[in-house]
């Protein structure tokens, strides 16, 4: 029987090729990067580019947000916290969305890098969720007169932070038990189920009465004046690129640790 090939890969020989609907193009492309060596060939140069470009955009955006844009007519100087608070919220929620996608790829397509990606996203995702909560609290004190309020947006964001902690604990426990990439199927299911919190966070300001303002930026436009809005694009892109670089660094570390572990086991067996 002839071997089915696409882009130099023997598709039907892949142990993780169990797609019941047949080889779809997107799945073939997804498995093109299933090989760690092929992934590392791209990840190594990309890490530095993402990091330095992200840092550059972030610093430019933050400097413009601090010293170039005018103060808001209602919030005064505290509006400048927007330029770090919004990207942190975006990355906290985006990070968990990434974990859910990785979990789906792990459970359905058994993609060998999906578990590693999920584990790599967890720590920076948790950090940016914590930054979102802290900067929101710092902004809330002069604006609302309180550090914290148990309303829909803040509570659901706090739940997201606890979900991250749970995921990290489960992934670490899986890693100690020697699961591939450190993420067991139970951890992946937890990542998938936890994604239900993402639309809740997003819609919380619409569904419940909240101190938090409604959606300021939607597909239909922005309620924030253009003179205040433009540095947000720079910090949003800068933080996102930096987040990507951090995830790649952590994926590379896990792949190297797995390589050392496999080598040590082979040596121990003689």
């Amino acid at each position, binding site marked *: 029987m002839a071997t089915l090939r696409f882009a130099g890969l023997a598709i039907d020989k892949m142990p993780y090729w169990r797609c019941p609907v047949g080889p779809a193009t997107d799945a073939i492309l997804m498995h093109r990067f299933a090989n760690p060596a092929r992934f590392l060939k791209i990840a190594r140069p990309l890490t530095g580019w993402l*990091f330095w470009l992200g840092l550059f955009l972030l610093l430019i955006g*933050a400097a413009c947000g*601090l010293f170039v844009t005018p103060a808001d007519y209602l919030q*005064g*100087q*505290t509006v*400048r*916290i927007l330029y*770090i*608070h919004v990207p*942190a919220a975006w990355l906290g929620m985006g990070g968990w969305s990434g974990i859910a996608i990785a979990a789906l790829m792990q459970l359905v397509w058994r993609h060998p890098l999906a578990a590693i990606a999920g584990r790599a996203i967890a*720590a*920076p995702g948790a*950090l*940016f969720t*914590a*930054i979102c909560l*802290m*900067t929101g609290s*710092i*902004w809330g*004190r*002069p604006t609302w007169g309180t550090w914290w309020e148990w309303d829909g947006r803040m509570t659901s964001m706090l739940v997201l932070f606890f979900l991250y902690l749970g995921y990290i604990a489960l992934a670490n426990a899986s890693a100690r038990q020697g699961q591939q990439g450190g993420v067991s199927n139970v951890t992946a299911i937890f990542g998938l189920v936890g994604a239900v919190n993402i639309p809740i966070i997003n819609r919380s300001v619409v569904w419940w009465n909240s101190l938090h303002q409604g959606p300021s930026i939607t597909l239909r436009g922005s309620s924030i004046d253009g003179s205040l809005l433009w540095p947000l694009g720079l910090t949003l892109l800068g*933080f996102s690129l*930096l987040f990507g*670089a*951090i995830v790649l*660094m*952590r994926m*590379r*570390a*896990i792949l*190297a*640790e797995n*390589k*050392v572990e496999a*080598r*040590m086991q082979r040596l121990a067996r003689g």
Partner: protein
Amino acid sequence: MNQWAFVIAAYAVTLAGTALVSLISWRGMRSAERRADQLSDRG
């Protein structure tokens, strides 16, 4: 309290957190890849 104090506190928290996670991730990657390379060199 001066509004700038809140702004500076928020930026300091963000800067410290981002720098810390970047540094930890970079050091983790460097040491793991060095160990893997040393093992490969030994054959």
